[in-house]
């Protein structure tokens, strides 16, 4: 579904992504990680800005709302996409998430 500027993608029923969970989805040529940070749903591009490697399957800290790049250890803030540690210094893209009729919906540009 497209509303002019963004496309809305259904991810999964909310019950399939419990607190501490992560779901990886593909949209066109982009991979996006959707995280449940102890009740808050957050989504980021599955690409470390340091060397373009996969990011979302790194160590996820639901309490701190961070993901650690499995390749070189950069820690990203899931709510802003900004790295909290080097070697990455550029932010990664984040996406708005909502729950509509018990389904997690992602807005991508």
């Amino acid at each position, binding site marked *: 579904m497209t509303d002019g500027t963004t496309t809305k993608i259904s991810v999964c029923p909310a019950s399939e992504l419990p607190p501490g969970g992560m779901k990886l989805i593909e949209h066109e040529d982009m991979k996006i990680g959707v995280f449940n940070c102890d009740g808050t749903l957050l989504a980021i591009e599955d690409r470390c800005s340091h060397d373009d490697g996969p990011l979302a399957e790194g160590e996820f800290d639901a309490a701190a709302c961070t993901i650690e790049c*499995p*390749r070189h*250890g950069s820690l990203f803030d899931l709510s802003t996409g900004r790295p909290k*540690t080097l070697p990455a210094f550029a932010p990664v893209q984040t996406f708005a998430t909502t729950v509509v009729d018990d389904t997690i919906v992602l807005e991508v540009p």
Partner: protein
Amino acid sequence: MATPEVVAEKESLAGINADYKEKFGFHDSESGYAYKAPKGLTREIVESISEYKDEPQWMRDFRLKSLEHFESRPTPKWGGDLDQIDFDDIHYFVRASEKNSRDWSEVPEDIKNTFDRLGIPEAERKFLSGVGAQYESEVVYHQVNEKLEAQGVIFTDMDTALREHEDLVREYWATIIPPNDNKLAALNSAVWSGGSFVYVPAGVKVEMPLQAYFRINTENMGQFERTLIICEEGADVHYIEGCTAPVYSTDSLHSAVVEICAKPSSRVRYTTVQNWSQNVFNLVTKRAVAHEKATMEWVDCNLGSKLTMKYPSIYLLGPEAHGEILSIAFAGQGQHQDAGGKIIHAAPRTSSSIFSKSISKDGGRSTYRGLLEVADGATETRSKVVCDALLLDEDSRSDTYPTIRIDENDADVGHEATVSKIGDEQLFYLQSRGLDEEEASKMIVNGFIEPVTKELPMEYAVELNRLIELQMEGSIG
């Protein structure tokens, strides 16, 4: 016939030209040691280091997680041959003394004598603002000028810093080099011990250098110090480190992590004179961040070790930040110096330079490995990379691996590289002025490295020249 000045110089060198084994390569008895961990790296060893130091739980968790990273990462196959290292044949923690003193007279006699022989207390008296002396895994002596202390400067060993300034340490700890950055950083993060913690408050200029000296004494020893320097806005500090070890037939490992944060308009210079014995693997991760209008400088001199892999890096994160790396490597028989530097321009109007000088002789191998990156958004940047290699004979080797990545169209980036040999004409000219062949070669080599030595404080420049002259001994004919 040599001039009187040359004869005097030659005579003054005669005493210095005692070989490494006598000057730096001696070793002390270990009979008075407080603790020596058995060889090998296990979860129990890591836990015992943390317990021994009575660390907070977060640090113990950090160490254990780092151990998992170390175990899960493959040994790098690029650079030098790391397969020679037997990680199970190393003592990961050795405590020589129970006490970290602020008075040389309280340092155990053997250890004090060692540092006396190395000239550390004398240097402290003459031209330093503070000194740290690490022997094996821990710092045995630390002192900082009282005036600086009154201005809020903290210069202490990392173990003490963790106890006395835990919040400050934790705020910056592993934010510049996370434990999973690379296998050796993970190893350091798991078993780190000692190193320096430097905090310079806003606006404070530390006029004279702070120095740390690292000494390995035990055979098959691993030294894993961890250094963190925080230089607040408008502050200025110069930190110098030196290192030596005894000559053994088996290998030791030195794997440090150094993190530096240069806040806006500050200046940090970090100078290393690395002179490990030729049975030491020297695998170090050094990284600095420079914020707006800050200046970060690495002066990195690598003379010793069996294999060095070290590429100090600077992330220019704020507009108008400036970074400089001066690297010198001397590779003699059986040595591989794989060194260089990395600069990442991540903000507009940043500038940088990398000057690398390497000398290879007697089959030694030197490698320049560097990265210059201009990231998207780093407009109007300027950078220059110069790599010069000098080969003194047919058996030696020099390689250059410069990587340049530019994501902005208006970057002004230059790269120059030269490889040269000492020319017969140069030697002939100098010999016609009264020097013999060896003296002439030394003079040419000293001229070659002069751009680096002129950046060192005089005492260190003299020492570096002497060390190179020592390495050059017998290289001709």
